[in-house]
């Protein structure tokens, strides 16, 4: 096992990216996540280009302007024009970045016109989901067995990213999240939805998503919340509306069933 790790490590140095070992931000499955992804790629390419220019100039100088080649050093030490240029050009580049970033941010913050509201509450160390209008609620806890965490058993594919009960959401609908916490600060995060919002005790934060494709999307708590911070994943299952309605109906039956049972006792 160890030897295999070292070998893989060396492969990674050689740049052979393993397909199962992602190394970039997911494009995601919402319009917002795609906007965020292209913003990220724009910024990444821009800084890469600037980096290449600057470092090429620097390494050229390192190679050519060295004492061992017998050069005599120049004596210039200022130039207002040059200094103005390299103050103004970066500024312009920043504006180029700021415009799309502002646009995306404005879209992200606009949660009007939602179809469904889910209240998310963070606990040490699990999540509670409540479909406010439907009156359905449940807890969602890590389902990876301790034996896998303690290396007594082979780890399975979704190690640490699986829960007993997923948050089920309809695709194509604008879902509003009301996020809060019962104890310390947590953060609810699903990379493929590009939603990350802190769950602050005593306050309610708002976020929203509109998922374009059915699927299972996994994330984790992103704010240090104590001992088991690494063990409170978020799993969202996005399904077509009809399937969602069925699921919801079943939950309602189950809940009323449980309530009836409780009343009868």
């Amino acid at each position, binding site marked *: 096992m160890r030897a295999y790790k070292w070998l893989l490590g060396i492969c990674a140095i050689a740049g052979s990216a393993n397909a*199962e070992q992602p190394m970039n931000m997911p494009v995601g499955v919402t319009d917002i996540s795609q906007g965020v992804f292209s913003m990220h790629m724009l910024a990444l390419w821009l800084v890469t280009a600037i980096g290449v220019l600057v470092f090429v100039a620097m390494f050229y100088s390192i190679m050519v302007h060295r004492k061992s080649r017998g050069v005599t050093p120049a004596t210039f030490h200022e130039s207002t024009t040059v200094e103005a240029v390299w103050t103004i050009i970066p500024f312009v580049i920043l504006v180029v970045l700021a415009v799309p970033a502002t646009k995306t941010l404005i879209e992200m913050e606009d949660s009007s016109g939602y179809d469904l509201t889910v209240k998310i509450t963070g606990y040490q160390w699990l999540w509670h989901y409540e479909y406010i209008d439907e009156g359905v609620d449940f807890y969602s806890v890590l389902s990876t067995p301790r034996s896998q965490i303690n290396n007594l058993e082979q780890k399975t594919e979704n190690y640490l990213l699986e829960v007993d009960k997923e948050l089920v959401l309809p695709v194509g609908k604008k879902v509003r999240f009301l996020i809060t916490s019962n104890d310390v600060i947590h953060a609810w995060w699903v990379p493929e939805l590009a939603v990350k919002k802190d769950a*602050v005790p005593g306050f309610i934060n708002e976020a929203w998503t509109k998922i374009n494709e059915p699927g299972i999307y996994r994330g984790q708590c992103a704010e240090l919340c*104590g001992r088991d911070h690494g063990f409170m994943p978020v799993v969202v299952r996005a399904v077509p509306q009809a399937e969602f309605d069925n699921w919801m109906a079943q939950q309602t039956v189950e809940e009323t069933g449980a309530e009836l049972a409780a009343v009868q006792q």
Partner: protein
Amino acid sequence: MSTVAADDHHDHVESPYSIKRWLFTTNHKDIGTLYLWFSLIMFFIGGFMALIIRTELFEPGMQFVDPQFFNSMTTMHAIIMVFGVVMPAFTGLANWLIPMMVGATDMALPRMNNWSFWILPFAFTMMLSTLFMDGGGPAGGWTLYPPLTLQTGDALPFVILSIHFMGLSSIMGAINVIATVLNMRAPGMTLMKMPLFVWTWLITAYLLIAVMPVLAGGVTMLLTDKFFGTSFFNAAGGGDPVLFQHIFWFFGHPEVYILILPSFGVISSIVPTFARKPLFGYASMVYATGSIAFLSFIVWAHHMFTVGMPLAGQLFFMFATMLIAVPTGVKVFNWIATMWRGAMTFETPMLFALGFIVMFSIGGFSGLMLALAPVDFQYHDTYFVVAHFHYVLVPGSIFAIVASVYYWLPKWCGNMYSEGLGKLHFWLSTIFVNITFFPMHFVGLAGMPRRIPDYALQFSDFNALATIGAFGFGFSQLIFLYVVIKAIRGGEKATSQVWENAEGLEWTLSSPPPYHSFTTPPVIK
């Protein structure tokens, strides 16, 4: 002022083996030496903690430590590296260099200088002792966010008191720097003739005085919330947990510039020497430092984009943060212009300085990406942020500190260090620092949160790689320890100027310099 200070001193130097000499010293060089050794010891302690963290993260699964202990390792590692390594190292450099650079005998306030150092060992002993207390050490992250931090066991009041001590020490150090720089410059050394190291430290000192009390206030509010029934950060009592984050980052962002501005000064001293060419754009360097310091006060909430701020707030902090890239860029361009058409040689200090320029820029690039609020929602609290701040702090601040040691060590102890070992140290450090931190960009983008002791399988390759790099980097630092001790104990004698083209008052003094630097003020051309 300088005569008052000089009168207090005895002219003879006590033996370096006498404890009294070190305990009661008011000499700027002795105190500088104490600071630097303290910093190096803490560097190995903090580094040891980092290796515990990386060992646990070598493979998925919990292998070695308990998650709570893991969290206290990340917390302590950060506090030690920030307050116990980088800040004391820069204060040590300031002590050694500022009086020599401005042509003074000593620091302006020598007794306070002794205090500001000797507080530190107590503060850190107390901090480290909390690891053995009921409930373990602090484990809520170096950012100390409530309510989590209020769940700390017996350690909390001790941690807070030690943070107060560290703050006190920094403030005293800062006052001393300001008093020295403003009052003790040799006649003719106007502000705009000061070496950049002195300039950047002067500005850093103002930042310290402005923000350390803010941190002190914040942690005191934590203390009263925990023990005296206040509810500053408790929503149930009418408070707001996010208020602490605003206080913390109002300190925290200027703090990160406290950790980097003196490095800018160091790099601006080293590059011209080895390029044999004057620093390009001295005045714009000074103004850029000033603008960075100013901007650092109005960007704090870029650490808090996800807490739920109004749109206008997010936009303001995004734009302000992006602006910092401009003066930072100016610095990098100026260094390259200094190299341009120079006649460079590549002794160890220059190698570390060049490494700094490249890798600090990489950290600046990721900083610019993080500034973009909508994208920061994805980056925030992931390993991408961990990669960012390690690039600016390790091959940034730490490389600058190491570069200064190589650069000024021959001046300090009168002996040359071993150039071959220095270069080996540089290359190993550079290779391993990148193996450690570059892959963290990848796992962070792919979705690995920071501050977790265990992770999903798709992050395993890059984590294994980072762990290998961390051990390599850690062990390479032993070379540094060896080189330094070896040079102190002997070696080829250094000339006064040490480096062919070194300019500045410190190079006019003998190597090692006299115990009281300039007893008669030098003449400034």
